[in-house]
């Protein structure tokens, strides 16, 4: 059985990453703080269930579940946090032309943040998890979906993000 105190201390090393991800999930600094606090409380409660492996991925999975529960509590009538709500784009996106590439290079951090916030929750989550450096297997584990679906969902989410960035860059 893992040492609960030691696990919790190691989890503290990921506090900044969890807070930053939480801020993007909730779109709000105060809600992100609540989410992180709830995440750590759950981590302490579930320490005995940690089976080893990537601690950061385990923490992000707990945070995702806490976020879903938090949303159900605060917005019970809102659509569920479901992969089916992922922004839909049919087919593989075309490679960007020179104008779009130049626009991407000019994009400021604020514009990129705004485009991320305008994505659906699920699309934003999968793009950000990819940016955190998780493997497809880890992303599948965090999101609770099959490995085979991660790649297509990520591709669709990134295509949706490109469309949003085009809008924000206009």
């Amino acid at each position, binding site marked *: 059985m893992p040492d*609960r105190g030691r696990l*919790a201390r190691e989890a503290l090393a990921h506090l900044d990453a969890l807070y930053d991800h939480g801020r993007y999930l909730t779109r709000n600094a105060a809600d992100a703080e609540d989410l992180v606090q709830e995440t750590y409380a759950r981590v*302490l409660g579930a320490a005995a269930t940690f089976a080893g492996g990537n601690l950061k991925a385990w923490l992000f999975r707990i945070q995702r579940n806490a976020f879903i529960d938090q949303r159900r509590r605060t917005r019970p009538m809102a659509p569920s946090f479901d992969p089916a709500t992922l922004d839909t784009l049919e087919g593989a996106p075309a490679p*960007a032309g020179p104008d779009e*590439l130049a626009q991407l290079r000019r994009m400021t951090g*604020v514009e990129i943040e705004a485009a991320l916030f305008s994505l659906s929750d699920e699309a934003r989550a999968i793009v950000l998890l*990819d*940016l955190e450096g998780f493997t497809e297997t880890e992303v599948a584990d965090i999101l609770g979906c099959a490995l085979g679906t991660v790649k297509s969902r990520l591709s669709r989410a990134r295509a949706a993000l*490109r469309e949003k960035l085009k809008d924000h860059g206009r």
Partner: protein
Amino acid sequence: MTPTDPTDGELDQALGRRPRAAAPAELRRRMEALVADARPARSRRLGRWLAPLGSACAAGLLVWLVIRPPVEPRGARVDMVEEAVNDHLRVVESTHPVEIESGGIHQVKPWFTGRLDFAPRVEFSGDADFPLVGGSVGYFHDRKAAVFHFRHRLHTITLLVFPADRLPWPSRGLHPLGPLAVDEQRSRGFNVLIWREGELGYALVSDVNLADLEQLAPRLNHP
């Protein structure tokens, strides 16, 4: 995941520029306290046996604390700087950072009446170099703060004014700046000036050059 075409590469580079925020100092303290309480039961049992020994050590420590030379609380000093930077980031990242738009300091200051339990003392109305954009109410650690928003070219400058009591004010390594004795620090790419005037504390934070902040700080109360 590895980019397969130039679009993915550019998109990844763009995403790498997204703003990232560190956990606020207060949240970090709360989580550290939560984790500290999670030590294993065995340690707590051992703690009961060691308690009498601990009491003796605590008494010795108390005597030492009384007779030792004063030492600057380094960690606490860093905390103040981190808190100021986090507050500045909250202003920069906020969609509506300004709650009262500026028509000059004599419009912004009265707006704080009834919103704060102290009167923020700031006399500088802003000028062409440092226009005053407006104000809002924020928090500095455990207390409310008056937040003044200045601009310098395209940069945002945040001034926090808050009650100075019960904070670990440094007494050494201060930089004389006109009538002020200022603690100048740099954290996460931001310059931070912190000082105390009477019962109020001031924190000035921005990514502008230190020299620009040094120009503004003494004018705030002595224009």
